[in-house]
């Protein structure tokens, strides 16, 4: 973001103080209050503000989102030049020829420096209108905002933060106070509505900033909070037996399936949208799995829910819908803990809701949200995968022996594409209990006529002699370069590293997260422990059948593990191919953009 700010601050002449106050938001986000709080705040505070508020408002092009609010979608520019609408880009995606080179061309070369330049260009292109506002006008806007904000705080919405604000910037707060006083006298009603608007529109930046440091996850060994959570729960959680001491802080896998219980509740769960409900059940039963699959299913369900949503009387769309989405999300969490990619997608959606211009009618807002969701799926997942494939394909040569672990959708696409291109290679599918996802992949590859070898993870040292490349998928990549992926990935990467075989991790950038992790224990997901006892096709392995309730026996079914970054040779993402050390750069540079697309 630093890259973006200088041109603006120099040309716009915004006082550094103002940014100090705490709205350290990029140009774009500090602007929206103006259009978003059009008349209410401005009119309430000072007459000057109303004139200041108008120019940005005039930028609102009908039918589409405010160009001031959203920086020109960089992706759309790169991916589908001249066709910013999602439909157009989608049609282009259908064309196999174009995606393989067009999207990558710009991004491939886009090193950080280049990107910065592009970015600055874009910013400066979008900024001129804003800069037409004179310094005084801008000042007026700022003051109006501040006044409204202070008024909101004063009315008791959040007294504490108001104190910090005034403490941080006494000069501004003085003015704010004076304006607030007049405001209170004049139109207290307007002030309070303005405050409520403020809360919606102004908060997100603050929230964003807080999110820079990922908030701590729910720790399930905290009895107090677990009790609280249980009260709210829809899915009734039964206590798991014989918990593994090391993993008490994680949500325990709920013993037995709650499917029947949930199904019976289908008609009782009023607030739950049926499509969300369906997705929740699919998570629970394991029908939908895999990072991308789960994310897309969730987003589509939310899209359905938004389509059927109508704002209740006396409620505000953005607030009510956000609450709604939150309740959906907590239901989904109860069904299965969220993956990091889903968390990112939810963050995106909530951000979009919060950023909805108030001028939009309900139907317009809904359709814009739906198209946002579509665009997210398209650009962040579908197109990203294709870009990754186009990058990764350059690493597949004739007579290669490629090893993959488990079943990753991106890796499968890479292998398919390489096969379509007529590359002669062999695939080694390594699999492990209890999910045995590799068998599905193996079946699909063999059906396509790809030469495959199948083995289990214990034989990895045996098979690694033959391998020339290792392609792995990931559930998430954390900002210290740790690859958070299906359990066993770390072992595969480790053995490959020991044999000097390059390890290529394929992961869409929307799965990146600024969280850091060193081991696989602090954060993980526990699967069904009883599956460990059952070995398919081995009826004679009933050794532990009657032991499951023995207090000395614990069963541990981890779902993920963390691969240290030094085992990873390269990460292939939609921004190109990078070393694991560059992950924080991607996270930092593109996170904001991710939220906005």
């Amino acid at each position: 973001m630093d890259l973006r700010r200088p041109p603006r601050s120099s040309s716009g002449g915004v006082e550094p103080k103002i940014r100090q106050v705490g709205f350290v938001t990029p140009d774009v986000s500090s602007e929206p209050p103006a259009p978003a709080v059009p008349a209410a705040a401005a009119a309430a505070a000072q007459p000057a503000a109303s004139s200041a508020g108008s120019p940005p408002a005039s930028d609102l092009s009908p039918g589409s989102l405010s160009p001031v609010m959203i920086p020109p979608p960089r992706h759309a520019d790169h991916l589908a030049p001249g066709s910013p609408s999602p439909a157009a880009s989608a049609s282009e995606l259908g064309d196999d020829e174009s995606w393989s080179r067009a999207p990558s061309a710009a991004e491939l070369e886009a090193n950080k420096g280049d990107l910065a330049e592009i970015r600055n260009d874009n910013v400066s292109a979008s900024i001129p209108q804003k800069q037409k506002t004179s310094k005084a006008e801008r000042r007026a806007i700022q003051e109006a905002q501040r006044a409204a904000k202070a008024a909101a705080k004063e009315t008791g919405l959040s007294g504490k933060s108001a104190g910090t604000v005034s403490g941080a910037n006494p000069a501004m707060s003085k003015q704010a106070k004076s304006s607030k006083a007049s405001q209170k006298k004049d139109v207290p009603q307007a002030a309070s509505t303005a405050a409520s608007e403020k809360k919606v529109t102004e908060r997100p930046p603050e929230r964003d900033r807080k999110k820079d440091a990922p908030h701590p996850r729910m720790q399930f060994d905290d009895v107090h909070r677990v009790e609280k959570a249980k009260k709210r729960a829809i899915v009734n959680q039964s206590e798991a037996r014989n918990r593994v001491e090391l993993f008490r802080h994680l949500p325990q896998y709920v013993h037995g399936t709650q499917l029947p219980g949930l199904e019976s509740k289908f008609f009782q769960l009023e607030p739950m949208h049926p499509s969300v409900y369906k997705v929740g059940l699919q998570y629970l039963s394991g029908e939908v799995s895999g990072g991308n699959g789960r994310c897309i299913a969730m987003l589509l369900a939310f899209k359905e829910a938004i389509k059927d949503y109508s704002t209740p009387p006396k409620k505000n769309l953005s607030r009510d819908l956000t609450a709604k989405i939150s309740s959906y999300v907590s239901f989904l969490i109860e069904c299965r803990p969220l993956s990091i990619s889903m968390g990112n997608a939810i963050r995106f959606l909530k951000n979009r809701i919060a950023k909805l211009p108030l001028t939009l009618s309900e139907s317009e807002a809904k359709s814009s949200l739906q198209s946002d969701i579509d665009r997210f799926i398209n650009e962040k997942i579908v197109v990203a995968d294709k870009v990754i494939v186009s990058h990764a394909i350059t690493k597949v040569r004739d007579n290669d022996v490629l090893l993959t672990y488990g079943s990753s959708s991106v890796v499968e696409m890479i292998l398919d594409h390489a096969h379509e291109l007529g590359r002669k290679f062999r695939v080694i599918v390594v699999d492990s209990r209890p999910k045995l996802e590799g068998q599905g992949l193996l079946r699909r590859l063999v059906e396509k006529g790809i030469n495959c070898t199948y083995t289990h993870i214990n034989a990895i040292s045996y098979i690694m002699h033959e391998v020339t490349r290792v392609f792995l998928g990931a559930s998430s990549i954390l900002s210290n370069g740790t690859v958070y992926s299906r359990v066993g990935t770390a072992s595969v990467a480790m053995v490959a590293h020991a044999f000097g075989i390059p390890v290529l991790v394929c992961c869409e950038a929307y799965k990146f997260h600024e969280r850091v992790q060193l081991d696989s224990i602090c954060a993980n997901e526990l699967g069904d422990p009883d599956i460990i006892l059952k070995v398919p096709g081995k009826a004679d392995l009933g050794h532990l059948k009657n032991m499951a309730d023995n207090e000395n026996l614990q069963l541990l079914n981890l779902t993920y593990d963390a691969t240290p970054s030094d085992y990873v040779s390269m990460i292939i993402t939609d921004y190109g191919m990078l070393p694991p050390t560059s992950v924080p750069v991607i996270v930092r540079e593109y996170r904001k953009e991710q939220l906005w697309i």
Partner: protein
Amino acid sequence: MPDVQPLVREFVLKLKRRKVEGSHAVARQTAELLRSVVSQHRMGSTNQAAALADAIRGVGEQLIAANPIELAVGNIVRRVLHIIKEEDISSTAVGIEGLSVTAESDDEYDSENDDHPTLSAAVLAAHARNALRAPSLQTLLEDIPVSTALSRSASSAGDSDGKSGDKSSKSRKLKHDVIAAIGDLIDEIDTCYDQISEQAVEHIHQNEVILTLGRSRTVKEFLYAAKEKKRSFRVFVAEGAPRYQGHVLAKELVEKGVQTTVITDSAVFAMISRVNMVIVGAHAIMANGGVIAPVGMNMVALAAQRHAVPFVVVAGSHKLCPLYPHNPEVLLNELKSPSDLLDFGEFSNCMNFSTQDGTPLLNVVNPTFDYVPPKLVSLFITDTGGHSPSYMYRLIAEYYSADDLALILSISPSSSRTKAASPRPSPSPAPEKEEMSLTSFLRRLYSKNLSLHSGRLSSTCFLSLFPNFILPN
């Protein structure tokens, strides 16, 4: 000799069909078989020891050829050969001492006698014993025969009594001594668990977290011993696909009241950062300190190295193999049935046999063993105590005589299917063209396995894996 032949054949068949597996069982049965070979052996008038050794060697070759992967067979054969030599020398020495004449002995030791005609018999015997082993640093440096105390009681079992110089009694005595010594060897194989587990308390402290993979009886006894000494510790058991022996071990440990957590093999890396020590069993320990262990062990060892967790291998001395491994992942390995991993029927619908020219699309690899290089092993615990990997060659020299090491290479050309024979496995026999597609599919799956052996053995091995499968002729 003819009397033991059926016994030998039966055991060879068992080995070939993999009816007897596991180093302990194999070692024990081999020793018992060799004992009966010795007892059935008719002693000639001259060169008894050499004749006996030849008989043992002949049987040993058959056994080793039957299952070259079971290194314990070769180990026991070499041990017995070593015993015969030692007994021969000690009885010779006793003979010298008793009669005060130059004893007749094998031509092999004549030169020794010629060189040192004036030495006392005891020194002579000691020197001869030394000659059996690889030269120690001391003898190399000082070039004088030093009488070293024999570590093994077995070799000196019979020398106290019987000072008769009578030839017939002497031959009987040699045989008797050898049989007794083999009996001691069997005892040693049986009691190695006790001796190893005695050391458990020295290595396991309170609240230790131990990780193990699969099931090894030695590990089980080791942990039991620590538990009996009131140590409380926690064990992570990786299940050890595709045999899932870890489940058995977990059950046994739980019954003993040990806190046990079963994890999948893939979770080893995730868990090893919280583990204090890895204790595993082995299939064989090679002379360089490398370990042939159940499949998956190299992964565990690498993970342990990454997190600086001690990797401890417990193994009885019958698992010490005097050979140096070459390409052990391939040459000292065995591929098992793919049905452990995939059901045969499961993928039949997506296989198109008509288009493929004998190279099916799907291969399934299911190896049995893993090779752990010595640098990944922190400690070996054998029945003689703890040793570092770099010391193993010396420990091994205690048990075997140097000229027996190449036992396998001396086999006649007809049985050249040996572990050390060729660096590259010989090509597998070309399958008959008219075989049905399933056969070629299965053959392909086993090509790696078959290429380890050749000729008849391959089909035997094949059939042993598929007892119900009828090869079309």
